[in-house]
């Protein structure tokens, strides 16, 4: 777990935030993340994030549910214990539809929820660094990663000009409770660079 240095700029309006994001990225700084109290549409694109593939995962989970239900019921009623129920054929597809549908939905929903929690590293008792407590209230908090070539004072001034209402400097631990979240990002692995 490496310590990384951040300049944290807080904005109180998303209409100021968007031009600021553009400016910071044009100036070549690396935005680690922007923490917002509610989903700001278009911010993910402004930050250059790719689309999430959570939908695809949901589709695969749903398909798993469909296949599980179909093969499970088919196996039970044709192989394991065939029963004559009201003269229906053993493989009574129309009668299977409700359960097939329910299991599709169940698998997709449960699978997606836990995938979401895994990807976002959300779980009870997890500890994360919070850059600003008001990020869940009314501030849009931008964390900009500093490298050893970054002039922190310059960057602070730059952020103030970009419309930030509050700018500070923080050292935070990167990496999370389980799994590695930020593998591709070049870790700044120098624990004692505070200053």
């Amino acid at each position, binding site marked *: 777990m490496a310590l990384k240095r951040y300049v944290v700029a807080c904005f109180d309006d998303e209409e100021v935030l968007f031009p600021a994001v553009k400016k910071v990225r044009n100036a070549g700084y690396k935005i680690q993340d922007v923490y917002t*109290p509610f989903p700001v549409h278009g911010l993910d694109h402004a930050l250059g994030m790719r689309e999430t593939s959570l939908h695809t995962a949901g589709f695969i989970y749903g398909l798993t549910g469909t296949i599980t239900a179909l093969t499970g019921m088919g196996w039970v009623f044709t192989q394991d214990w065939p029963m004559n129920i009201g003269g229906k054929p053993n493989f009574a597809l129309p009668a299977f539809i409700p359960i097939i549908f329910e299991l599709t*939905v169940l698998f997709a*929903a449960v699978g*997606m929820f836990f995938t979401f929690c895994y990807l*976002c590293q959300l779980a009870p008792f997890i500890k994360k660094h919070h850059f600003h407590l008001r990020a869940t209230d009314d501030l849009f908090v931008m964390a900009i990663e500093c490298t050893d070539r970054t002039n922190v004072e310059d960057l602070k001034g730059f952020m103030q000009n970009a419309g930030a209402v509050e700018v500070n400097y923080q050292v935070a631990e990167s990496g999370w409770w389980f799994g590695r979240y930020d593998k591709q990002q070049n870790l700044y692995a120098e624990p004692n660079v505070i200053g």
Partner: protein
Amino acid sequence: MHLKYESQIREPLVNGNKDYHQVTEDIIRPIEVKPSRLWYIGFSISVALLLFGIYSVYRDVTYGIGQWNLNKTIGWGWDITNFVWWVGIGHAGTLISAILLLFRQGWRTGVNRAAEAMTIFAVMCAGQFPIFHMGRVWLAFFIFPYPNTRGPVWVNFDSPLLWDVFAISTYFTVSLLFWYSGLIPDLATVRDRAKTKFRKFFYGTLSFGWTGSTKHWQRHEALSLVLAGLATPLVLSVHTIVSFDFATSVIPGWHTTIFPPYFVAGAIFSGFAMVQTLLIVVRKVLNLQEYITIGHMEAMNKVIVLTGSIVGCAYLTELFMAWYSKNDYEGYAFFYSRANIFSPYGWSYWGMMFCNVVSPQVFWFRKLRRNVAFTFFMSVIVNVGMWFERFVIIVTSIYRDYLPSSWSYYYSPSIWEIGFYLGTFGLFFTCFFLFAKYFPTIAVTEIKYILKVSGESYKDKMDVVENKKAEEFAHDYAH
């Protein structure tokens, strides 16, 4: 940067001059202060009802359900009536949170969180009835298909009662996940405002370490959208399958293809009435009139008049088909057992007709749709009517079946049947009181999300902008 623009003609969804912080304050405040006296009184009554219900159920388990006044002919009475009633009530929550999300109805944001909570509690109550109706409740796990040592003897996958098991349990799980995933960011807001150690720990645990990162929001949006997409057909399927419990049988009055849409409409109808009942109290007690506005209530009353009319149309269609089919048994069920006011259960049929078909028509009048006290009164009437509907469907169809020698003339519930029903009210309101005290009753993040297009102050501000020349305005605010 204007991401979305909403016309000024639309009524604001958030009244008052609010900013983001004010929204947080208003909605989270009730969690952080001691509950009012009214809360304690309501909570005590609910717990008392719950205890009475637990005692009734304890007697059911000890002495068997023979202590209910069911008999061989009327094998389903209050229990299944209450089951269908509670499941139906649950449907409005999913409708508000899922279907209205897909339809991009902004007003859902004010009411969806409480409505979803209502769904979950209502489904919990509903589940009790079939489980205890089994009699030997300790063998309830037999309803799940698992490789067992009894053969293995599997459950009957062709039976609508088993479909119900899958439908209700899936519905409960998906509603719970949908509700909770939406709640995570709001719980994080409570956590970050917490002053006491306990509250920090409690909400810190429940909020799963949410930070509000843009990437997380992006995934959160994707998750809610897909869950909404899944919940929409799910909610329709659940009451469809509940109606299959009746429709796939050969009992006159049940054996009709109209049942699925008719049940779904009825479910939404009663569910919205229950949302009204709860929210009219919540907005008053927690002082949230600026978020759950008269406009919200009017919108819900419109849904009530629509679904009430669909239900009324279904009643008339049933009557018509009973006559037009020239089927003696259908005709007897409808024109003797139900529509004849002098028959033993005629009163329940006409009570249902009055509460569900006639009375909601008053909501065609705008004045009445926007009247809080009247809406509250009507919401109770509608739920009484919907209870009658299920009672009529179940009891009037089976108390006189094909074999006159097994006719059972009169069925009235025993005190323990009533106690069980009251107990589920206790469960429902106990859960709801705890929810209203310890969780944000309104989706804080979603209110913030719509604040800049639907808030009153922003509407006023944009009025000036809109009065500029049309071309200029279109140029500035085009998507």
